């Protein structure tokens, strides 16, 4: 695994130099298994945070038994610090629909949905217009595929693919047991492929430039480029496309305000990296993150930061399973108690052990990932929790 220095690239937001629908047109005349292989070879992983190999998901989707397969674009972007999907859908929506069209082609799906978070409802008129254009193109290309917008209504947990599907079915967004996975049985029991907005764009780009070109970017583990949403104590907040595999210290040099104390990588569900570890950590290692990167300088109280995160989790948990529903409340109340001296400092260790339980016993990714920021903040900024 080779480390790379920070390198900005420009694959995703390039203006339509080649029409995305031309890419679609050229791709859907190739044999489907060839296209799937291309995506597999590229090493592209899901860009929503879970990092599942995209080619593999599409391969399973193609092999799934059943008619009326469904493609869902997960635009529920709710991870704090993430706003890249908003920019994609505003600036280059055609690349998204192109990616969805290619996915529909290789899997045989005929229906697609864009699950757009409720907070982005203002985008609907423009997106409806784009979809009109898309459907015209599909007609011209003889591709039997149409996309409908489905609006969310304010629930972070609906970013989890099975919770999203439950929401679309008119129910509470409570994640399902897996297996069965959506590819086997998803929306109304049909084989369903759910991918993040950026994933569809990247897949479309892979089909355009080829997997060999795409593989040149990134590292062995982390192929390609990724959008990072950067905010917090930075003079240049915004969305940046960066090759994967860079060191945090390079990142901090480029985007920090020269007083950076900690970097939250992967949103509140990710890890808080302290200054002493900037040299060691490689952003994106072990699985892509959704790209949410929040920067904190030395004026920030990490207690306030963690408190804010836990309040968020306690509210946004679907409430179904015990470790998450009760665990989040325990963590929140627990750090308050330590801060206000109604519990001794050692109670933090009890809470650390609780997060281990939450990590292995929670039903879905929300409960499982609370441990990440809790452990990284409490371990690295313990004094701030107590005094």
């Amino acid at each position: 695994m080779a480390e790379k220095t920070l390198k900005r690239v420009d694959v995703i937001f390039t203006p339509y130099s080649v029409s995305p629908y031309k890419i679609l047109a050229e791709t859907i005349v190739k044999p489907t298994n060839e296209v799937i292989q291309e995506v597999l070879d590229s090493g592209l992983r899901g860009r929503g945070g879970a990092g599942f190999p995209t080619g593999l998901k599409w391969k399973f989707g193609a092999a799934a038994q059943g008619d009326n397969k469904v493609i869902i674009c997960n635009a529920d972007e709710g991870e704090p610090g993430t706003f890249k999907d908003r920019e994609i859908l505003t600036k280059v929506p055609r690349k998204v629909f192109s990616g969805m069209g290619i996915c529909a082609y290789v899997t045989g799906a005929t229906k697609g949905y864009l699950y757009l978070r409720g907070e982005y409802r203002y985008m609907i008129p423009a997106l409806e217009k784009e979809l009109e254009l898309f459907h015209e193109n599909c007609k011209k290309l003889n591709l039997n595929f149409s996309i409908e917008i489905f609006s969310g209504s304010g629930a972070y947990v609906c970013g989890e693919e099975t919770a999203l599907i439950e929401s679309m079915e008119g129910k509470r967004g409570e994640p399902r047991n897996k297996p069965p996975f959506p590819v086997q049985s998803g929306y109304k029991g049909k084989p369903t492929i759910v991918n993040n907005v950026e994933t569809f764009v990247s897949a479309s780009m892979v089909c355009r430039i080829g997997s060999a070109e795409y593989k040149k970017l990134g590292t062995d583990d982390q192929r390609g480029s990724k959008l990072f949403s950067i905010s917090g104590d930075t003079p240049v907040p915004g969305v940046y496309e960066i090759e994967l595999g860079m060191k945090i210290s390079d990142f901090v040099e480029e985007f920090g305000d020269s007083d950076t104390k900690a970097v939250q990588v992967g949103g509140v569900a990710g890890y808080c990296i302290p200054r002493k570890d900037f040299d060691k950590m490689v952003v994106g290692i072990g699985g892509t993150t959704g790209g949410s990167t929040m920067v904190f300088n030395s004026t920030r109280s990490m207690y306030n930061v963690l408190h804010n995160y836990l309040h968020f989790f306690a509210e946004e948990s679907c409430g179904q399973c015990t470790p998450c529903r009760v665990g989040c409340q325990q963590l929140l109340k627990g750090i308050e108690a330590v801060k206000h001296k109604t519990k001794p400092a050692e109670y933090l260790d009890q809470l650390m052990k609780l997060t281990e339980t939450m990590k292995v016993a929670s039903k879905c990714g929300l409960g499982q990932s609370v441990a990440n920021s809790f452990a990284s903040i409490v371990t690295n900024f313990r004094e701030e929790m107590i005094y």
Partner: protein
Amino acid sequence: MADIQLLVKELSAKHGKERSSLMPILQGVVSKERYLSSEAMTEVARELDISAAEVYGTATFYSFLDTNPRGKYVIRVCRTIVCDMHGKQDVIKTIENILKIKVGETTMDKKFSLLETNCIGWCNEGPAMLINDEVFTKLTVDKAREIIQDFIRNK
């Protein structure tokens, strides 16, 4: 037929009467009425032939499907960490002072409701808020004041 019945029938004509039609129908009611009243939810139950409890249970899951009465303009100020760091508390105080209500409350003339909400995806331009579906970013105390006063005067 009562107004709410008409509205629900319109929405079911557009979105269907299946369980999977529930979310768009509830969203449609909230768009018009700003919240889901007991009557509205009962009508939806009738239209979809599901129990009122099922409608209620689904609606209360989603932060934007309010079952408490709200004003014509629902202000949702983001409270998540980056907006918090960049002054959302001052923005809220300002709005509270202008409208003479606290977070969670609605003005007497039922024109404004003030709420806090979780990350709305504008962290690079925070503090940010929604007023119904409209987004307002890069809020300062002054900008917030301007926006609210504009709403008071012109809308």
